[in-house]
């Protein structure tokens, strides 16, 4: 390690006078393709482990086996059809969950009665894992699509609610006062002040919700499903096909990563007015 990369205060000799530079407290400039660095590193370790025989093929298939298997699954159309079914479930659950979460957050954030009635039950729901609710949901809704979508919805609306509600409650009271002095109507107040003010919170909630949707998907698809990525993996388990299981896992991972990246993109676009450590 060279002296200039040492943490803390550095001293440089410039034209004979020592210059003391302050330690930078922000995280510094963003690294190009920085988010890809971690996953690529994992992949490299996995490849090296498989090639050297350090990882047993029966326990974990090699990356190239997984790629060939994925190719075969795509060739006979199983991957696409299962992926499409899973995506539909996730998106439906996500869409309904977002609407429910935002509506509940508005009701509970803008009125004391709403908060008194709604906040308690939602906090209780938050403490119960979706998996634990599943037996009840199956009894009520059967094992059809509505049970699956509702399980996902129940996992999604909680983070949306919590973060939107928090974002909404932390809107500066001075803006509320301003809204009063310029005579904003209730609707204009919600549209111009509340929703944009709660947007940073909502988007953070959305990041949790999106990955949460894929997580709930795993739970519902490995129980009583006849299609979907989870079903494909469950079937592979019975035949001991670790390569197919890995394809499913990678797929879940990629989907989660892509959707998170998508939300972060929205975040950057929608919150361009902010000046933060990010920029």
């Amino acid at each position, binding site marked *: 390690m060279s002296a200039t990369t040492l943490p803390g205060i550095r001293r440089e000799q410039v034209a004979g006078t020592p210059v003391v530079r302050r330690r930078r407290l922000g995280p510094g400039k963003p690294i190009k393709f920085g988010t890809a660095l971690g996953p690529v590193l994992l992949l490299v370790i996995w490849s090296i482990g498989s090639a050297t025989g350090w990882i047993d093929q029966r326990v974990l298939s090699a990356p190239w086996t997984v790629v060939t298997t994925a190719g075969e699954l795509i060739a006979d159309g199983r991957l696409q059809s299962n992926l499409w079914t899973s995506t539909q479930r996730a998106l439906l659950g996500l869409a309904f969950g977002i609407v429910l979460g935002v509506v509940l957050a508005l009701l509970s954030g803008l009125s004391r009665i709403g908060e008194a009635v709604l906040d308690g039950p939602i906090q209780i729901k938050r403490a119960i894992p979706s998996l634990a609710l599943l037996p009840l949901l199956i009894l009520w809704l059967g094992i059809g699509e509505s049970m699956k979508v509702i399980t996902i919805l129940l996992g999604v609306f909680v983070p949306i609610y919590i973060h939107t509600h928090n974002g909404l409650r932390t809107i500066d009271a*001075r*803006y509320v*006062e301003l809204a009063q002095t*310029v*005579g904003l*109507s209730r609707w204009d107040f919600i549209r*111009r002040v509340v929703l944009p003010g709660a*947007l940073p919170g909502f988007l953070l909630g959305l990041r949790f919700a999106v990955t949460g949707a894929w997580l709930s998907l795993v739970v519902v698809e490995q129980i009583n499903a006849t299609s979907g990525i989870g079903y494909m993996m469950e079937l592979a388990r019975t035949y001991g096909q670790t390569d197919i299981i890995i394809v499913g896992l990678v797929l879940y991972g990629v989907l989660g990563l892509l959707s998170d990246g998508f939300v972060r993109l929205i975040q950057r676009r929608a919150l*361009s007015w*902010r000046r933060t450590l990010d920029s």
Partner: protein
Amino acid sequence: MAPHAGLLTAAVQVRGLTRKYDERAVLDGVDLDIAPGEFVALLGKSGSGKSTLLRALAGLDAGVAGSGELVVPANVSVVFQDSRLLPWARVLENVVLGLTGADERGRKSLEEVGLAGREKAWPNELSGGEQQRVALARSLVREPELLLADEPFGALDALTRLKMHVLLRKLCAAHQPAVLLVTHDVDEAIVLADRVIVLDEGRIVAEEHVELAAPRSPADPGFAKMRSTLLEALGVSL
């Protein structure tokens, strides 16, 4: 109470206004009239009740105990010490906040405060003085009959403040609102106002009509005399 004949046209009429926080009277029987187009500056130490009076006139004191009579025009605008621009709305959206189809008027207002061409900027991209000018544009685009300003230049540097004084005088001459400016700056009050009022412990303790020739300069002996009178009313002896 029957209005006085001469006050029928007053923009603001305050009679026996009292406001209490925890049994402590912050305003203690204030009487005040402001004529249409009149510029009144309100001086006072911290805690003298000057902001409380302004908030009462702005209708921002719901839930505060008190009594008295208050007549204010329907169209009141407030300029706060902080510009209070919505950070997530662009400059023009901030100016026309709550108005419909007022974009053209908003653009004109921005031009009036010298910010033509900055309609699409985010408030964060503007300097403190520019932000406060946007806040002025936001108030004036509503053509208020009464403009309430709560230490609007308090957070600005001295040079910017002088420029804002010139701008505010120009804008008030053009739009003719009644103005109540709360400030702790005696010079600012004398430079800007037609009348200066001093509030102390919730009561009006001094009142001066400023009849100095324009441009009002601190070098004017009349200016200096008024300043020392007002400072004395504020409890500062030099």
